[in-house]
């Protein structure tokens, strides 16, 4: 498995190079001059040109890109155009906030989604199943800003149990994590149900039942594991999205995550930050995909990673 992982990581290099090139040139295609945006409308032409030189934006694009790559491979991400702070610092703190929330959200989503999914599959086509479907649909369709505000009004304003916004303590993370977890849980729940229903109709399940095993053992020991492969794929994708930062949820709950950072950086044409953040997200996705693939092999020994 180790050589497989190494090979996959090597294969990721051209993907990342492609991403960086695409992001670099895409962001330069958007109208808007970063030096002017930074200096402000009222800045004199000399000030803007001075800033352009100071930020190294006066050179040809390929030169700028080469310079970026050169620094990148030595681990230097440069400084934010907008704040002058080192990009690495800027992104690390935001990514940590986002990752904390994402892990919390995905863990809750898995617990909630798996539980409702299994229940719905075992009691399929009953009232329980229909109720689970309804709740999932709701979880998927509520826009996060609405869900977030409703949760805030109820748990913070009415009941006063949790703080409204910020990220000082773990209690601050509860509501945003729930806001993010509900739609993810809905997807996972539907996937678990579908996959489990399919497995439950297979011959080996009938055999297990014929052996006289209790339904509990049949479901948990025999069916669930085989039903997990598509679920793992979905969980991986959801985690990837969550790690990319959830702009709306971060905004509603004043969570200093990477989603907000990227949106602000794009608005300011803050290339170094956009560049580094998008690359980081690409790495995240590659990493998650790799983990997902490796998990397949763990779950199903018939799958060989070559």
């Amino acid at each position, binding site marked *: 498995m180790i050589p497989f992982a190494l090979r996959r990581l090597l294969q990721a290099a051209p993907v990342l190079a492609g991403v960086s090139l695409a992001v670099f040139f895409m962001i330069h295609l958007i109208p808007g001059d970063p030096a002017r945006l930074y200096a402000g409308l009222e*800045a004199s032409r000399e000030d803007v040109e001075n800033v352009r030189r100071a930020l190294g934006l006066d050179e040809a694009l390929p030169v700028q890109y080469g310079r970026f790559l050169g620094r990148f491979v030595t681990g230097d991400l440069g400084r934010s155009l907008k704040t002058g702070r080192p990009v690495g610092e800027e992104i690390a703190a935001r990514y940590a906030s986002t990752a904390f929330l994402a892990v919390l959200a995905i863990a809750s989503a898995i617990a909630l989604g798996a539980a409702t999914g299994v229940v719905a599959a075992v009691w399929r086509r009953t009232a329980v199943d229909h109720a689970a479907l309804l709740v999932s649909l709701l979880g998927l369709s509520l826009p996060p800003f609405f869900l977030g505000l409703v949760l805030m009004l109820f748990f913070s304003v009415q009941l006063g149990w949790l703080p409204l916004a910020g990220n000082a303590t773990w209690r601050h993370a509860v509501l945003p994590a729930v806001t993010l977890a509900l739609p993810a849980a809905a997807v996972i729940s539907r996937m678990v149900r579908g996959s489990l229903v399919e497995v439950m109709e297979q011959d080996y399940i009938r055999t297990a039942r014929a052996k006289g095993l209790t339904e509990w053992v049949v479901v948990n020991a025999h069916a669930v594991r085989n039903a997990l492969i598509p679920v793992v794929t979905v969980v991986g994708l959801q985690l990837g999205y969550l790690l990319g930062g959830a702009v709306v949820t971060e905004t509603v709950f004043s969570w200093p995550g990477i989603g907000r950072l990227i949106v602000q950086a794009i608005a300011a044409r803050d290339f170094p930050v956009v560049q580094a953040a998008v690359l980081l997200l690409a790495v995240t996705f590659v990493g998650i995909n790799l983990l997902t693939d490796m998990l397949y092999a763990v779950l199903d020994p018939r799958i060989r990673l070559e």
Partner: protein
Amino acid sequence: MRTRLAWTVAFALASLAVAPVSAASAPKAGGTLVYATGTDALTLDPQFVTDVPTARAVMHIHETLVYMDDEGKIAPGLAEAWSVSADKLTWTLKLKKGVRFHDGTPFNAQSVKQTLDRILNPATGSPRRSTAEAIQQSRVVDEHTVALTTGKPFAPFLAQLTAYNLAMLSPTAADKLGKDYATKPVGTGPFMLESWKPGDRLVLARNPSYWGPKPWLDRVEFRVVPEDGTRVLQLLAGEVDVIASVPPIMLKRLAGAADVRVLRAPGYRTVYVGLNNKVKPFDDLRVRRAVAHAVNPQAIVQGVLGGVGAVGGGLESPAIGGAAKGLAPYRHDPTLSKKLLAEAGHAGGLKTKLYVPTGRYLMDRQVGEAVQAQLKEVGITAEIVAPDWGALTAALNKLTEIPMFLMGKGSPTGDLDLTLTLVTQTGGRMNHFNYSNAEVDRLIALQRQTTDAAERQQILRRIQEKLYEEVPAVVVFYEEQIYGGRASVQGIEVHPNESVSFARAWKQ
């Protein structure tokens, strides 16, 4: 120094009255004030500040040589006295004695010189180098006296020194830290930086050896809460003490709440519909006047802004010293407007585009839509275009692409020279109207060199009247600043240049 405004009681919202702090309640020391703001500070280096929210944080840590009071008079800051030479070229400033920076470095003439030399040095890369460009030379006369020389007589010199970009920084720290000064600022101000987690919170602690009256508060926490609704909820729940930029739609909600008050203060910012004076059809004065008669500012302030903001006809907010008083908006008269359009050959109406920013000024998008509807009544069909700020400014700066736009202008220094030069002088950096009038240009240059205050006022008045007649832009409203606060908070100072200070604030 700055006017102190008390919280107006919430139920008296409809009035603009601002009552003075009652003398009965004595200030109490201690505690942390939490201030929720929509945007984070970008830097704590004064020489790199380009926006208001950043300036608010920076100016708790740093101070300028002089300040401007609400009447537009210069008041002492780190400089306690000043004089200008007979040839009006050399300004001599006497500095306050016994002032130290947060790192212990004494504040003296040398630190003034080094601060000014730093921003003027192109290698520093300040986006606001031009703030100091009038200063040709800074010279240390003695430990507590500094002489600043300009190339030409420069009337707004002292006003210029009130700019946040020219706040004093510790030369020791600036030399040692370079770019990292942005996160480790060392000023002379009433508060010092304690910690900063970008995007989340910035914590300031009382400067125990502050030279002036010591702050009452132990700490001030600037919290970033981007969502308007969240800020209001946090204030109502008591999670924060003060919130910035209350949206007009939320005023009712705050008015009905106990323990919460609303603070309203006039501002220097004008929001206007700019017309490109060099592009058809707005190159014709009759068409520009037709637009002025079609737009109904009163209806916009009442209907869209819920009564927030003031109405007027002059391009400069009446809150700025030197602004011409008594310029009413052009009379709302659709019939006259149509007549003017017909005279200009647009009897059948005309089509144009109105560019609006989103989220930059108070309800900007909605204001744009209201203007669009009012123009429609006189036969002007304006399509709304709302690109993001970067794209909008790039297009505006081309000066040929945008016929009509909604924009705003504030004034960090509160001196008309700054805004007139930027916005209405030929080739001015924010003259997106492409307005050019030789007489106006001449008068702008003249007022800059006229050091006699009364005479300068006369010239300024003439410039503004000329602009009023020629309608490079139609004024929609003058922005009003709205803060919300817990009733227990007192002594917040809001300045019309949009700065806010907690230096004298306290909590019951």
